[in-house]
């Protein structure tokens, strides 16, 4: 055996020994579905309510601010949501209601305008439309439910010093239709809390928008991001929601999440 041949053999041996070591984390990694299930079970609350400050900054730097109260009952796919704008006075009373729709994975959504004294249903065709001029659209206003997606673990990444699982989620589009082709989810490893979502539109390769959840606090024993920022990577605008007066599991009146309440003057 020549000197050169021996060296090659050593390299081959080394490779054979090192390969199992390199692939070990992947093979030992938890299943993405299991991670998301675990995350859901850890953070599931019966109800949530908060006061939010909404700030929209367009690409020219023009700032629009609004305030709202948000109420949620249920979690993920079975959640009901009501948002009522409180500020500025010109938009006070405007309401947004989202209810699960029987037989469909897409919820029913309505917007109520007090000046017209009438609610308007958001059509599925309008799910891509901007939610009242923010960088969120109506689909973004739905609670994330991993069961509506085919999920796969992409790897790990560190965000702001925190190791995260990176999971891809592709809409199944069984009983629904999404405007997105794929979501990339970043789940903090330590608390299994979603801290970032990259949203890739149909036909695109790069994310069109990015949702960053930060300022994570523990409130009443539940982790919650007190700041959400959605950035439109194409338009260059971003919308920030700052959560205040957060509370969990407080009983919500049964009538809160109804159309009658939505259209009621001052109905929270």
């Amino acid at each position, binding site marked *: 055996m020549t000197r050169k041949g021996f060296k090659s053999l050593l390299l081959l041996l080394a490779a054979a020994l090192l390969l199992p070591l390199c692939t070990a984390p992947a093979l030992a990694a938890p299943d993405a579905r299991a991670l998301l299930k675990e995350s859901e079970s850890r953070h599931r609350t019966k109800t949530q309510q908060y006061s939010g400050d909404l700030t929209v900054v367009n690409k020219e730097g023009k700032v629009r601010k609004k305030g709202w109260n948000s109420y949620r009952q249920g979690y993920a796919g079975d959640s009901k949501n009501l948002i009522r704008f409180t500020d500025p006075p010109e938009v006070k009373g*405007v309401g947004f209601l989202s209810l699960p729709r029987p037989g469909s994975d897409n919820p029913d959504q309505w917007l109520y305008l007090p*000046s*017209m004294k009438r609610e*308007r249903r958001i*059509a599925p*065709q309008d799910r891509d439309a901007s939610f009242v*001029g923010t960088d969120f659209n109506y689909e973004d206003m739905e609670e994330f439910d991993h069961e509506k997606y085919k999920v796969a673990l992409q790897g790990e990444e560190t965000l702001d010093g925190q190791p995260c699982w990176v999971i891809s989620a592709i809409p199944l589009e069984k009983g629904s239709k999404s405007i997105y082709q794929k979501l990339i989810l970043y789940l903090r490893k330590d608390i299994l809390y979603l801290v970032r979502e990259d949203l890739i539109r149909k036909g695109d390769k790069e994310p069109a928008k990015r949702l960053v959840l930060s300022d994570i606090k523990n409130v009443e024993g539940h982790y919650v991001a007190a700041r959400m920022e959605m950035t439109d990577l194409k338009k260059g605008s971003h919308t920030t929601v700052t959560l205040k007066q957060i509370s969990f599991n407080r009983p919500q009146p049964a009538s809160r999440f109804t159309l009658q309440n939505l259209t009621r003057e001052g109905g929270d």
Partner: protein
Amino acid sequence: MRFLLRHLSLSYARRHLAKTILTLLGVVVGVTTFSSIKTAQDALVVGIGSTVDRVAGKAQLQVTMEGGVPEALQERLRNMPGIRATSPVIEQIVVPEKGELGSLMVIGVDLLGDREMRDYGFEGDDADLDDPLLFLAQPDSALFTREFAKRAGLTTGTSLAVKVPSGVRKVTARGLMSPKGFAQAFGGNLMVVDVYAAQELFGRGRRFDRIDVRLQDGVTVAQGTEMLQKALGPAYRVETPARRGEQMERLVANFTAGFNVSSAFALSIGIFLIFNAFNVSVNRRRRDIGTLRALGATPRQVQVLFLAEALIIGLLGGALGCLAGTAFSQALLVSMGQSTEMVYGISGSGIVHLTPAIVLQSMLLGLVASLVGAWGPALSASRISPTEAFAKGSFQARVQRRVAPRIAAGAALVAGAVALALSNVVRGNGLVLSVLLLGGIGLVLLIGPLSRAVLVALGPLLTRLFPSAGPLSSDSLLGNPRRSAGTIMAMALSLTFVLGLGGYMGSTRLTIVRWMDDILTCDLFVRASANFSRPDFLYPGAVKGEILALPGVRTVESYRAIRPQFHGRQILVGSVEMDTLMQRVRYDFAQGNRDAMREGLLNKEMCAVTENFHDRFGLSVGDKVPLNTPGGMVEFPIAAVIRDYSSDQGAVFLDRKVFLRHWQDDRVDIYDVSVTPGTDPGKVRDAIRAKLSGRYPALISTQREFKDEIGKAIDAFYAVMRITVLLALGVAFLGIVTSLLISVAERTREIGILKALGALPGQIARSVVLEALVLAMVGLMLALPAGNLFAAFMEGPVAKAFTGWAMPHHYPWEVLGQLLVALPLVSFLAAGIPARQAAGVKVTEAIEYE
């Protein structure tokens, strides 16, 4: 030829610049009239179509229903297979308080999702909807195009006052649109509001004007139409935007058809002016022609020379006329747009475009008119023998030799035109053009000999009335029969047109006024909308009870009109409480009678149709009118045919109960209120105002005011026709000026001799003024019977062909009276320059003149 042009034509043009310019002016006037009318007419039709297209955006189909599409339909459509997107729309035209900004088309759309359907063009450096939530939350929010905002001085956040049914409302600009796609509709005079705000603003209740539909990829328009039509039933119309545009264009076709007559008239007058100018030019240059012929020029060369002159003048006049026409067309379009908006409730964009087709047509027109006008004189010129040309005065004195055959041919052609008008052989535009052509040529043949006969007969009278000026003017007119006949011909044709159209308009107005006196007999009319054809607000049916409960009110009838398509035409279906209505109105029956109509409409679910409906669709008493209702097709037997002028497309009337039963729509256009005897309608008006105040818009007119408003709508219909009548007078003026200037120039030597013999400048000037007056009055005299025939033709066959209404003939005495005042003034003004020129002729120069 170039040599001849340079030495004969150019030298003549240089020496007689004023006359050459007048010849050119004749072509320019003719082409200007044609091109301005044609450009405005085309822009109006194209504007209507393009507004429909642009507003439609990406919509492939539009779903409409008489009385509006119920809101619930949108949800139904959304859930249908093959539908990609739906979007409700409300359209309305409003006028800003600052009227000079022009009408604004208001489009109510659902901004939550409408970008799937329309491109708003928000993109740009400073472009965006300022705050979408604020836009939706505030009902006064509106989007404007940048171009309109600039004209109105609007910026984001500032307000504009607009007139809406409930009065003047301020709307706030919350965003600006870039001028592309949708924002170019209606010439950019566009205001976008939220569709639900528009419902409130325009009293649409819970209905939309239409729902735009975008189909999923792979679904063809034909498949989509079939699927929707099957699913929705006959009460709904499913059409492509292009088809809707066509229907609107058809609706205004009657209105625009009137302009074809004006264009044809302008063209014929232009030809006459050119003919006259060339005729005189030949006479003036007979010595030059004689010299040319003596030097060996062939008759053909002489004819070609004159035709070449005509060609140059035609090209130049065509180009200038085309440019002038474009300048005038914008004003004409505005007037046309206002008329169609008032009469039909539709309007297009307000911008004219000079299309290559119009340029080509105008140039060809100038060219052909010049060649046609010059053909006869060129032929005459070629036939002048050198001996005849050098013999002074022989050509001038030469009169038409074969008078009798000419009169016979003229009379035969006029008789032929009358026969054609009375027969049903040709219809529509073909009828108008063929009758005008035959009658026009007949008149041309007749006017020459007749005018000479009249001038000869007038000679002694003129001498007796004006001892010095009379013989001079009489000699001048008889001395050059070709020039005189040509001018009188142009005058007579112009005045025939004026008398004919004036008579037609007067007759129409009189007929409608008589009809209004029979039908509009109640004391007050309570309307929510100023627009008769396209009401922008409808009352709920319950308001009737409120008005009826007021003291002094005897009866209230609720009138509702819808405008469905019927065999390709937009007819009117009117409904009202027939029991009380028939007690107070007098119907003029073409078929059936009062009792049959009352019994049929009230107890047998029958309908009454108008005479023009009966003529158009061939349906008579006993026949059934199939109408689409929300519940499906219903056939209404005809109980009577009445003479009624509610719609130029035809109308069907039903009892209100029948309408409510089938259409399930209790909204009301107008409440007809009758007061108890002895009650002051003014007090009842105040009470109604107070009752409706703050809740509904209320335009309350007394019977007199209401009739006046309808009169205004009729005037709007004829507004542009009136402009063409004025134009006819202008052409007559130009004809007289041309003729007199040429007359004075030709008689320079004669005038010089007269002055040398002691004639005073005043006497000479008076003779020129008298000449103008005689020309005009002889033209009028000959136009009297011709104008009467033309008016009868317009009132009868033309009106019947286009509107189905036959107007009883009414002699245009008012127009004649106006002409008897206006013509002497026009003649006096036209004679001003030539008279001054004649009075100022210097004896020494005049003697040398030849």
